[in-house]
C-alpha cells in the first residue's frame, strides 16, 4: 500500500514538481543505490567500508569516459558500473584478507588511493578540473529504441527505471540463499566455515556487489551534471552512504533508501541555518550511535507494528 503510493508519487513527480524537484529526486535515487550497495556489505555481511567513494568514482569517471567515446546512455552507465565492479574485484582481493577494524581502515586507504589517482593523473582524468562536457547521451538500443535525454524529465524517468530494477534485484538478492549466506557470515563466521561455506569468497562477492552498486550510482551522475570532478572520490563522499544507512537503519532492507531521503532533507534544512552542516551531521551520527543504533526504520516499525516485527527484519 505504502509502496504503491510511493511509486505513484515518483511516477508523477515530473508533472507536479519543477526542475529542482526532479534534480533532487535524482540525487536521492543515486544516493539510495549507493547506500543500498553499501548496506549489502555492512548490514548484511558485517563489513564496514569507508572507501565506497572509490568505486562510486570509478563508475562516474568510467561512464564519463565511455560517453565521451560513444554517446549512448546505457553503454556508459552499465559500462561504468561494470568497471567499478572490476575495480572492486581487484581491491577486494586485498581488502577481504581482513575483517572488522582492519577492513575499514584498508577500504578507506584504497578509496583515497583512487582519489589521489583522480587528482594526479591529469592526462586521463583531467586532474582538478575533472572531465567536462560529458553529454547526456540518448538512450539507444540498436533496432529497439532511440530516445533523446535532453530534458530533465526524460532523464528522471531513466534514473527511476534503473533504480527500480536495481532495488528489485537487491531485494531478490538479500532474500535469496546468497543473501542468507551473507547474513550467516555476519552473525557467525566460524559456523559458516564449518558448514563448508568458503567465507572469503562470499565476502569478495558481497564486496563486488557493493562495488557494482556504487559504480552504478556514480555512473548516473555525469549525465546529470555533465561533468565529473575528483571530490566524488574523496572520503567525505564515502561518508554519505554510511550516514544514509545509519540514519535509515542497517537491519532493514529499506533503511538505506529511507536514510538517503532523510539525509537530503536534513542537508536541505541545515544549510538554511548555517554553512557548517558537517558538524550537525557529526552530532547526528554521535546521537544515533549512542542511542538509536537501529535507525529510523526500526523505530517506526517497532512503534507502529509492535516489537514482534523486530525479529522478522533481516
Amino acid at each position, binding site marked *: 500500500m505504502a509502496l504503491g503510493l510511493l511509486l505513484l508519487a515518483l511516477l508523477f513527480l515530473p508533472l507536479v514538481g519543477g526542475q529542482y524537484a526532479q534534480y533532487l529526486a535524482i540525487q536521492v535515487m543515486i544516493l539510495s543505490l549507493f547506500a543500498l550497495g553499501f548496506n549489502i556489505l555492512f548490514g548484511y555481511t558485517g563489513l564496514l567500508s569507508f572507501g565506497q567513494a572509490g568505486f562510486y568514482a570509478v563508475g562516474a569517471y568510467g561512464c564519463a569516459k565511455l560517453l565521451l567515446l560513444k554517446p549512448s546512455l546505457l553503454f556508459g552507465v552499465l559500462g561504468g558500473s561494470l568497471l567499478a565492479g572490476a575495480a572492486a574485484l581487484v581491491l577486494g582481493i586485498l581488502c577481504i*584478507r581482513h575483517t*572488522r577494524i*582492519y577492513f*575499514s*581502515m584498508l577500504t578507506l*586507504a584504497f578509496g583515497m588511493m583512487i582519489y589521489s589517482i583522480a587528482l594526479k593523473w591529469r592526462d586521463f582524468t583531467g586532474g582538478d578540473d575533472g572531465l567536462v562536457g560529458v553529454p547526456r547521451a540518448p538512450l539507444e538500443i540498436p533496432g529497439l529504441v532511440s530516445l533523446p535525454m535532453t530534458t530533465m524529465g526524460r532523464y528522471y524517468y531513466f534514473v527511476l527505471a534503473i533504480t527500480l530494477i536495481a532495488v528489485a534485484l537487491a531485494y531478490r538478492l538479500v532474500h535469496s540463499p546468497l543473501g542468507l549466506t551473507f547474513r550467516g557470515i555476519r552473525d557467525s563466521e566460524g559456523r559458516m566455515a564449518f558448514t563448508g561455506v568458503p567465507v572469503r569468497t562470499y565476502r569478495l562477492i558481497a564486496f563486488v556487489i557493493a562495488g557494482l552498486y556504487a559504480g552504478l550510482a556514480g555512473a548516473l551522475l555525469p549525465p546529470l551534471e555533465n561533468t565529473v570532478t575528483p571530490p566524488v572520490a574523496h*572520503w567525505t563522499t564515502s561518508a554519505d552512504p554510511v550516514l544514509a544507512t545509519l540514519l535509515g537503519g542497517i537491519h532493514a532492507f529499506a533503511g538505506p533508501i529511507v536514510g538517503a531521503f532523510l539525509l537530503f532533507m536534513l542537508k536541505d534544512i541545515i544549510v538554511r541555518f548555517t554553512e557548517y552542516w558537517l558538524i550537525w551531521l*557529526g552530532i547526528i*551520527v554521535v546521537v544515533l550511535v549512542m542511542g538509536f543504533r537501529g535507525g529510523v526504520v526500526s523505530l517506526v516499525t517497532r512503534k507502529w507494528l509492535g516489537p514482534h516485527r523486530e525479529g522478522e527484519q533481516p
Partner: protein
Amino acid sequence: METLAFQGVVGLSLAMYLWLVSAGLTIIFGVLGVINFAHGSLFMVGAYLAFTFYGLLGWNFWLAILLSLVGTAMVGWVMERFFLRYLYGVEEAYQLLLTFGFVLILDDAVKMIWGGVFRIPAIPEFLEGHWPVFGRPFPVYNAFIIAAGILVGIILWLGFEGTWWGRTVRATASDREMANAIGVNVPRVFSGVFMVGAMLAALGGALGIPVRVVSPGLGAAMIIQAFVITVIGGLGSLKGAFVGSLIVGILSAYGTLLFPVFELALIYMVMAVVLLFRPQGLFGR
C-alpha cells in the same frame, strides 16, 4: 647520489610527524581495542591550539606546546569518558562510527573557530638556521623534529617496559578482567591511555606549526597516512608504527622527487605488497 641521501634525511623528519600520530593510534588500539578515526583530527586540534598560543598570541614556544597537549588531552578525555566508554560492549563497527562522527564534528568546529587561511609563524630563534648535510643546507628545525621523535620513542619504550604505570597498562591490555580483579582501575587506565594517545597526536601537530601549514583538511590526510602505516607495521605494535612511519615518510620524500605524479600511489602499492605477503603487518602478531 647526494640528492638521494639528502632527500632521505628530509623524509626522516616527515616520518617523525607520522610516527607521533601512529604511535598514539596504535597505543589506543593496543589497550582499548578501539581504532580512533578522529586521531588525525586530534593532530589537527593540537596544531591549531599551538598555532593560537605560539603564532597568534606570541607566547613561549614550549609553553604553547604544553598548553596544546593539555587542551587536546581534554578533548580526548571528553571523547573517551562521555561517549566511547558506553560503547565498549557493542560491535566495534559502532565505535568506529562514533569516532567517525567526531571527525565530522572536529573538522567543522575548527573551521568555525579559526576559519580562513593562515600564515606560518616564525621558527623560534634557538632552532633557526641550517646545518650542512650532504653538501646542502639542512634546517636545524628538521633535526630538532627528528630528535624529538626519537626521544618520544625512547620515553614510550622506557615507560612501557620499566615503570609501574607501564606494567599496569600492559596488564590491562593483555587481560582486562584479570587486571580488574587484581585491583587495577580499568576505566581510569582507559581514559589515561586515550589522553596519552591524544597528546602524542597533538605533539605531532604542535611541532609542525613553524614549518607546515595548518588547514581543516589536515586531520583526514594524517589519519589516512596513519592507517597505511599501521597496516604496514602491524596494528598495536609500537615498533611497527615506528618502522612503518620511516617507510612511509622516506618513500613519500623520494616519491615527490622521483615520481611526482604517483607519489601517493607508491605508498599504497607498498601497503598492498605487505598485505599480500604478510597480512598481519611487519611486526603484527
